[in-house]
């Protein structure tokens, strides 16, 4: 087994996203280094990933809200290696977004030792290049780290 290194995101050429009319505003904002989430224009419930209907009231009206970029680790894993990349260390996380309650993102913690990531660790958004000129929202441990359990 390789040594666990500093967590990173997958290299740009390995990450290729596709969009549809519901999701495209999320990615267009990310390209401008803004983290946004769709909020139902009728009942104000947030949802992610962006989908055509509000699951609470079935409305198709959406307001895109710019978020602060703060997030909290809801759960995480540590993965050493990826097909073709034996030495990569990934810390995939599911995060809660304090200013978009009810919506979660599946993302990566980058630039940290995996041992410093815990459930509840506070994070801030950063953006990582991926294929076709898009940017992927990823997260770093907030400074100063509140860390620990």
């Amino acid at each position, binding site marked *: 087994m390789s040594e666990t290194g500093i967590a990173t995101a997958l290299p740009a050429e390995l990450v290729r996203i596709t969009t549809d009319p519901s999701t495209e505003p999320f990615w267009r904002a990310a390209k401008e280094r803004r983290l946004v989430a769709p909020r139902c224009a009728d009942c104000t419930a947030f949802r992610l990933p962006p989908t055509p209907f509000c699951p609470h009231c079935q409305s198709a009206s959406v307001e895109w809200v710019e978020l602060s970029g703060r997030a909290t680790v809801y759960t995480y894993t540590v993965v050493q290696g990826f097909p073709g990349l034996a030495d990569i260390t990934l810390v995939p996380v599911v995060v809660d977004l304090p200013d978009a309650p009810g919506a979660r*993102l599946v993302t990566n913690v980058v630039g940290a030792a995996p041992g410093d990531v815990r459930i509840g660790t506070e994070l801030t958004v950063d953006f990582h290049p991926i294929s076709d000129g898009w940017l992927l929202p990823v997260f770093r441990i907030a400074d100063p780290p509140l860390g620990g359990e």
Partner: protein
Amino acid sequence: MSKNVRLKHSGLRDTAIVGVGATPYYKRGESADRSINQLAGEAILAACADAGLSVRDVDGLAFYSLARAGYADQMEAGEFVETLGIRELRFSAALTGGGGGSAGAIGLARAAIVAGDASIVVTVMALQQRTRLGTVFAAKASTPLASFVQPSGLAGPGHLMSLLTRRHMHQYGTTRDAFAEIAMSTRANALNRPKARYREPLTHDQYFGARMLADPLCLYDFCMESEGAVAVVTTSIERARDLRQKPVPVVSVAHGGTREWGRAFSWFGMPDDGTFASSGHKSIAQRLYQRAGVTAEDIDVALIYDHFTPMVLMQLEDYGFCAKGEGGPYVLSGAIRHSPERKPGRVSVNPHGGQLSEAYIIGATHIVEGVEQMRGTAINQVTDAELALVTGGPAALPVSGLILGRDR
């Protein structure tokens, strides 16, 4: 009414499984000298022979996982009809989703029979590992929704489920010792089974010395990458009584699930009320028991879909064998160890060695074991077992469950 008399009359009992068949179980790459459709055909012919039926008389096909064979191959009803010599097809359908529907496919077969559309319905699953399931998502083209999960490097199902596992450990204090116990007890059940892929005992030290694949999941928390095929024949209870084997009635069956679970590991938005760190089966369990008129205490043997050890633990909670959050202490008490004698407060789980130790054919081996337990012919038989629970995989909806019984 005595308990046994009550259980003998409980539930649906309008259809029965009358035949099961399987190929040998192979390691990855070992069945490459045959096509996947040949494997499926062998299993279908074996299941028909077991039932004492000719394959020509099959008139229905009830698949799951969208009739995929594994994740990379597609089964086609027309091909089976043409190449096996089935006379006339009258029903062909598949549950949507993936391995979550394995147990529920028998409900699809039942639906066809009860509706009068078909009379002899085959369910089949075949698997070869040309695409490695362990990293299946890394190789898949992205979709707009998958673009919200895939970029994080969650390369396979185990990576996804490690996230639920971590949450369960955090919320309920569950420890890796519980997952080790599931891996070790399942392995212990495989030791005396000629077809099992793994027949050496698994020790505590081996478990804790194994490589982490998706922390907190190590090598032994993952089911194996095996190859083979399994088929099951279902017909009406009346017809079943004229066939070769003792009928195994379908006592209850359900598939589906709730909005809160939804696409599960494909969105991770499940609420924090005990749903996220669960198997997604709670509503299925309720419907299944209600239809059968039984509770978890009446289940004599549990064939629990074991793609990953923690998902066995979470299903034991959702199916009511223990309280929510108590899965760790429950399995560590020895409650799931196989014992021929049924005792209150415990249940024999996967006495066939499951997908962790016997073979992984996307849930189909659990149906076979349920049938053998109800016939009384299982290698690790629970004496006089009256009811067997069979579950489909915790996965994106639909998930499913099945209760099999003994005929009167």
